[in-house]
């Protein structure tokens, strides 16, 4: 299962300190781990866990980019396929307890100034997860015009919710061949057109 999916900044943000990351979208799947706390505490804890993941990925992305020495090229809407091809990718291992109660594998894609991150449980099929993450990222980039200067990722977040409900329902990774994927994507496109 995928525990959560998030979109966050991996570039410096003026209002935040150096290693911090602004979370633009996050979605946690499944019931909460903590059952002994009040609902308010649970939500707070969940947000903090997500922030912790975002920070770790931010650090991983900047170290990877530093090591590879590649220069980021500014892209414009229309270059989505290129953006995906050029994206940095990697995996971060989160130890049990830090911040989730069991060990997690965090897959990430760094596209320009944003990171697309998927927190997967230990026995997950990471090949499938990687493919799904790339697919989700491509759809987000296209349907929310993320290569432009707009803020649709914040103002049209329901589109991501619908995308996830088809391609990653309740956090379940799906083995979709191109025909199944096409059917689901047509469904998503129909929603986006509204």
């Amino acid at each position: 299962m995928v525990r959560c999916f998030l979109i966050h900044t991996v570039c410096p943000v003026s209002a935040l300190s150096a290693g911090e990351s602004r979370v633009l979208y996050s979605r946690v799947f499944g019931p909460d781990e903590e059952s002994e706390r009040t609902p308010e505490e649970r939500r707070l804890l969940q947000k903090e866990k997500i922030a912790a993941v975002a920070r770790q990925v931010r650090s991983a992305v900047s170290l990877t980019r530093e090591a590879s020495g590649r220069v980021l090229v500014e892209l414009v809407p229309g270059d989505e396929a290129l953006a995906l091809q050029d994206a940095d990718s990697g995996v971060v291992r989160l130890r049990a307890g830090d911040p989730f109660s069991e060990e997690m594998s965090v897959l990430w894609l760094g596209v320009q100034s944003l990171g697309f991150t998927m927190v997967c449980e230990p026995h997950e099929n990471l090949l499938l997860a990687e493919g799904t993450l790339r697919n989700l990222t491509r759809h987000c980039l296209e349907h929310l015009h993320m290569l432009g200067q707009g803020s649709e990722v914040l103002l049209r977040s329901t589109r991501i919710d619908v995308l996830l409900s088809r391609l990653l329902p309740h956090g379940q990774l799906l083995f979709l061949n191109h025909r199944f994927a096409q059917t689901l994507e047509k469904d998503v496109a129909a929603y986006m057109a509204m």
Partner: protein
Amino acid sequence: MYSHSSESLIQQAREIQEPELQKFYSRLVKLLQGKELGHETVDSLQRLYLILSATKYTRMLPSDLQKRLRSLLLSQSEQLQVLSAAVLRETLPLSGQEPNYNQENPAQLNSHATALLISQAVTRTDLSFFCAQLLRCLEGRPSESPAHSLLYILPVLNTILTHNPKCLTEDHVTLVSKKLVDWLRYASIVQGGGASSGRFFTGPRSRQPLPIAELDGTVSGDFFTVLCVGQGFTEDQWMNVYSFSMLRHWLLTYHSVSNGNTTVDAANRLQLSLSLSLSFSNDDRSEVDGSVVSMVSATSSSSRVLPPKERLREKAFQYCQRLIEQSNRKAHKKTDTELQKACLVEAVYILDCVCVEDASLVYRTFPSIKALFGRLSSDLLYARVLLPIAQFCLNHGELAAVDCDSMWKLVFGRFPAELFSDPFLAHELLRFLRLNLENIQLRVSQYTHFFPNLLKFLAWDSPAVVDDFVDLLPSLVTPGTTVELLHTLLDLPCLSATLVLQLRSACLPISEPGSRSLACLDAFRHSSSRGLFLFLLRGEAGSGDTIERLDDLHKLLAEAADWPRVIHCAQTVPVLLHIFFNTVVMVADETLLAHLILVMLERSSLLFNIPTYIKEIHRVFSCHLLRLCKLHPSLIMYQSHELLEFAGTTANVYTKEELYTHVVWVLGEYLSVSCDSRCSVRLITSCFEALEAVLFEITSSAPPPGATCPAPRAINALMSALAKLASRSHDLIPRVSLFLSKLRTLTRGRSVPWCSDEEDLVAIVTRGEELWSLLKTPSIAQSVLTPPPHVITPQSHRDNNVAMPLGLRTLSILAQSQRH
């Protein structure tokens, strides 16, 4: 991509004031009261979501707004469903309004409302109730519940049982097992209609149904799987996809073999399975009537007599075998090729899982796994598929009496050597090692020999995998590999640079006209120096601890010292060295530890020149030199010659101050008869003379050009060491006392060239005076300067005479405090 407008939107949402917020709430309630909910409502709801989600502190919604939103959850418009679920997820249900899980009817809920319900579930009983309802839906006839709701039931179940496997009762598990069998094995083998409208289900059949096809276009000859295609899909074909997607997790949760299985038990199971496999009757069909001869199922056992769990296991086995067979076909689309790889990984993991449960399946599985290995082992693009096969070999190879040597050569040999730059392979391979470490150490004898290869992952991308190596490094420290491992760790930054060169060399042409080529790249390719690099790139240990021309190698790589990748690597080496030394003390004997001290002394001047790297390594060496000598004081005797030589070299005071100070300290502390009976007066005297010479030299002249004054600590260490040695061989006391009194006179009121700070000078002189006065009473001097062990370790609580009054005092305090 991340614009100012986005940032300011978030800031606004976080900083919205309460009065404005309340106005917004009331406006929204009015909008929601209207008959038609148009764009303005949707935009306002979206804005509400942004306001609630932008901060980690929860905002409560007024009750009327909450009620309206809850009713929107069941709206016909998906947009409103999604929006209301998203908003409600970011706030808390009103007290007294928490959902009643016993009453919610999943058949009436859509996917978004269900997700909300699950995220708000607090107790296990809530989820159990909800599960029971869900499964009631599953049991019902398909026509009763709206068809689309069935599709998300399996993902919902899967997410619930991730946290709470006990939510499902035995009966539930049986029911789901039966359903899974139906969907996995008996899904429709004809194509669904109505593809153009994107609907999920078959419409009325207007024309002859076409059979499903394989990914390469040929007509399918066996049951439906995720690797089958059609123009449209029937409902049970969708359920086939959802079922397979959760199959592994289901098996791991409910089919795990208890540890209490005895061999007798396993033998009984083996007997049963063997006798069943002898019968070759056809599988019974469920509702769907198909008459295609299936190739996989014809060779399988009759499953009519098996209970549901075992039946599911058998069907899972067949499904995976079919997937392996289907993955051999050449798919038309690239995404399908990638899916085939993912399916192979999943299939092998599931087969591993069922074989762990039922050992008799190993014999049926191994031939196809072996064939798969044969097919894929030479193609590096399938490296990630070979890891599950390695897991299978590790778990079941012994049972099938298979020699997995070529497998290990691939996993430990070729993969790290050629695929070190693939972050996903690195993660999965290292994870595989971590999870199976004990087994690997038992079954794969050559594991530790491959450490040079494994360290390539670390050298390439240290930040990403250092955590894994913190766990794995101890297993690589064995008496046979220790010294070579230490050398390799110290040269890890050089390996990092060499890997970069190796990749660049493969990409760039031999000579690029007109461009600046790296000097180190030329050196990498040049025949006279290539051997040096090839040593670093070796895959296995055993061909030598290190190379003679290490210095040359460092010089050739000099321009790599500021490459970020190399710097990241250098930052992780001290941590790994600490782990290394902590492990070494547990596995090595004194001879080996003495050898390590020698290596530390030698390598202290032979390190790759990255700023701060050398200093950090010296600090680690100092720390562990101290520890080793404390644990085994007689190590000083083993390496007395080298230690004396090191301590007698004045230049070391200036270039390796930290390490020098510690060497001098251990000499002073442990060079005595009480630590090792082999210690002679002659040895003490020659050590004394060596240290004395250095002390004279550094306190008589300014430091050489380019060097700073020696720290007071170094000088104090020298003086203390001399005093300690003199206290053990009283003939030497006059010489020390003479020096110390001279020191006092020389420095009185004057500045000296070898100490720039006045306070430091005072500290040094004070220490000198203390030692001088101590040495006036030689008999006490020894006990004070090197107290015997029983004085240093606190034992007063163990001594009867001392402990009694302490104990009585404690008891009376306790008794008195109770009275108050």
